[in-house]
């Protein structure tokens, strides 16, 4: 009988103890797995979100939050200049403003109105009902609008609805006249916040809304998105843009992720590190305690096996296998358990206001599973070390004598 089989038989001979131990390891393992997913999940999700847009460089006028940034003037000319750079493949101008939308018989809703360059729509939203924005003849008068699912629900909008739009002015009541927009489609927006209502219109529609607040076509952009040529890469594009327009800030996705990793994400990294360490400590103590108690209960049995000629290595191997069974079975059960727990925790955390709807805190990655299994293996081996040492160093004759005397 192999050490593996002997260990299994030892554990199953006391099923209640074995099940409790496996359940304990599974719960602790699930927490550990979740913490490992959390330790990189937000970063992976953020990176994925940036990459989804299809642009790998962002150009803004100043640092800081989008709503507080100074807009980039002469956006059309800038986009044309950037397009001429050999490192640049595609350029999109991104505009964003806050407006009030009114539908008869309903309270006005605050909405984020966006506009992107023609052709960039496919990276920004996906039509689920109706049509996409129309351009060209008649677009100027019709003022087409694509609305998010949440906005459609809030104002009972469907393709064909007419909605009144008025720009908002921060801190003051607005008396700017409303304009009518025609809803042509309902869409899922890639970057919309979980608690935000979003709509998109053409550049002309957007400029008309802005002109209501500040007359004159200012041709401003909140950000310019750039896709670099794959052969040259985003860093080359950033260098070229900085050379062309040193007054602006250009960031590659890598730089944004690195900034996020250093600033906003460090909180989650620290939390996950502390909780991972604690859960590993619990797993170690649980398995070490169980095995030590088990060994102490079976000292005479082990001394007898040694007297019968079983080697120290064989006894140690059997105990290591006991640890491996407990940690292995519990650890594998922890994966689906941790997955379910992560779904629930992710749902709770994503309900925080101001977060992009598609951003996740817990992201499943093969790397997280590998790290989890490696940590659990080391913990299992470490936890078995003391009981193995006790069993291997057991004085055979003294232990047998003690058993008889007792």
């Amino acid at each position, binding site marked *: *009988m192999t050490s593996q089989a002997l260990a299994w038989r030892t554990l199953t001979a006391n099923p209640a103890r074995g099940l409790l131990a496996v359940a304990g390891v599974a719960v602790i393992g699930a927490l550990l797995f979740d913490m490992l997913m959390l330790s990189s999940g937000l970063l992976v999700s953020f990176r994925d979100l940036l990459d989804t847009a299809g642009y790998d460089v962002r150009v803004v006028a100043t640092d800081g939050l989008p709503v507080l940034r100074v807009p980039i003037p002469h956006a059309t000319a800038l986009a044309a200049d950037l397009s001429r750079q050999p490192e640049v493949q595609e350029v999109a101008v991104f505009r964003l403003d806050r407006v009030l939308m009114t539908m008869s018989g309903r309270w006005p809703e605050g909405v984020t109105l966006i506009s992107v360059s023609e052709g960039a729509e496919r990276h920004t939203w996906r039509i689920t009902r109706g049509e996409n924005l129309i351009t060209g003849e008649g677009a100027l008068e019709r003022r087409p609008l694509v609305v998010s699912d949440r906005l459609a629900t809030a104002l009972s909008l469907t393709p064909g609805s007419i909605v009144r739009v008025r720009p908002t002015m921060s801190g003051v009541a607005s008396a700017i006249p409303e304009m009518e927009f025609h809803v042509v489609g309902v869409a899922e927006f890639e970057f919309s916040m979980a608690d935000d209502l979003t709509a998109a219109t053409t550049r002309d529609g957007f400029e008309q809304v802005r002109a209501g607040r500040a007359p004159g076509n200012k041709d401003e952009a909140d950000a310019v998105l750039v896709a670099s040529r794959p052969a040259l890469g985003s860093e080359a594009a950033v260098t070229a843009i900085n050379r062309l327009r040193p007054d602006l800030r250009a960031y590659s996705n890598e730089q944004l992720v690195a900034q996020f990793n250093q600033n906003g994400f460090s909180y989650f990294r620290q939390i996950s590190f502390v909780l991972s360490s604690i859960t590993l400590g619990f797993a170690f103590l649980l398995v070490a305690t169980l095995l030590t108690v088990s060994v102490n209960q079976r000292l005479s049995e082990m001394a007898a096996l040694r007297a*019968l*000629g*079983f080697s*120290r290595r064989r006894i140690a191997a059997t105990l290591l296998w006991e640890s491996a069974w407990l940690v292995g079975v519990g650890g594998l059960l922890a994966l689906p358990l941790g997955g379910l727990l992560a779904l629930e925790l992710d749902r709770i955390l994503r309900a925080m206001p101001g977060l992009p709807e598609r951003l996740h805190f817990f992201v499943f990655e093969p790397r997280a599973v590998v790290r989890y299994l490696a940590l659990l293996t080391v913990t299992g081996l470490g936890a078995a070390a003391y009981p193995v040492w006790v069993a291997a160093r057991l004085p055979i*004759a003294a232990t047998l004598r003690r058993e*008889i005397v007792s």
Partner: protein
Amino acid sequence: MTPIVEGRDLTRAFPMPAGPVTALRDVSIAISPGEYVAIAGPSGCGKSTLLHLLGCVDAPTTGSLVFEGRDVARLTERERSRIRLTRIGFVFQRFFLLPMLSAWENVELPQAEIGIHPADRRARTRELLDYVGLIDRGHHRPSQLSGGEMQRVAIARALANRPALLLADEPTGELDEDTGEHVADLFDRVHADGTAIVVVTHNPVLAARAERRLAMKRGTVVSS
């Protein structure tokens, strides 16, 4: 005839907080192949200590022990384990069968340890369980056996690798008189089959069956 095991001037002292306690003092003993020796004496006289030395599970403080021509003191731990596994059989007062294994598996275990082929293992286990009269109880766990049955399984386990020497420490200590006599009968058979036996016992009936009886007192052999 060359003895299986021979101890010369064996002394075993145990360190204690109040000073060393000498459990065995200058004992010399030789066990020849096929011999049946009983060691008797009051509790604490050093019987089990002597048995443990003969079985290579303990080392003498002074004196020499030679097993089948090899000086035990010069052997590594691994070599001593190998001798115990292949040349010595142990029977304990409290049986020490593995509770999670069946009687059959308990008997198979030492054979598996030295890598005997499964088919040969099965044949030997069947033979041994038949030998001790428990062929129909092979799949029972120790908890499902009586004390006498457990001791018979333990004897079968001790004989599994065809040892030259069977050591038994109070093998009837946990058994009633009748059951103890059955176990004694079994030792007679083992002896008749050519295995040397050293039995430590308080049981005069069991001791009376041995060819040679040693009486011990305060760590020394007082008569033989």
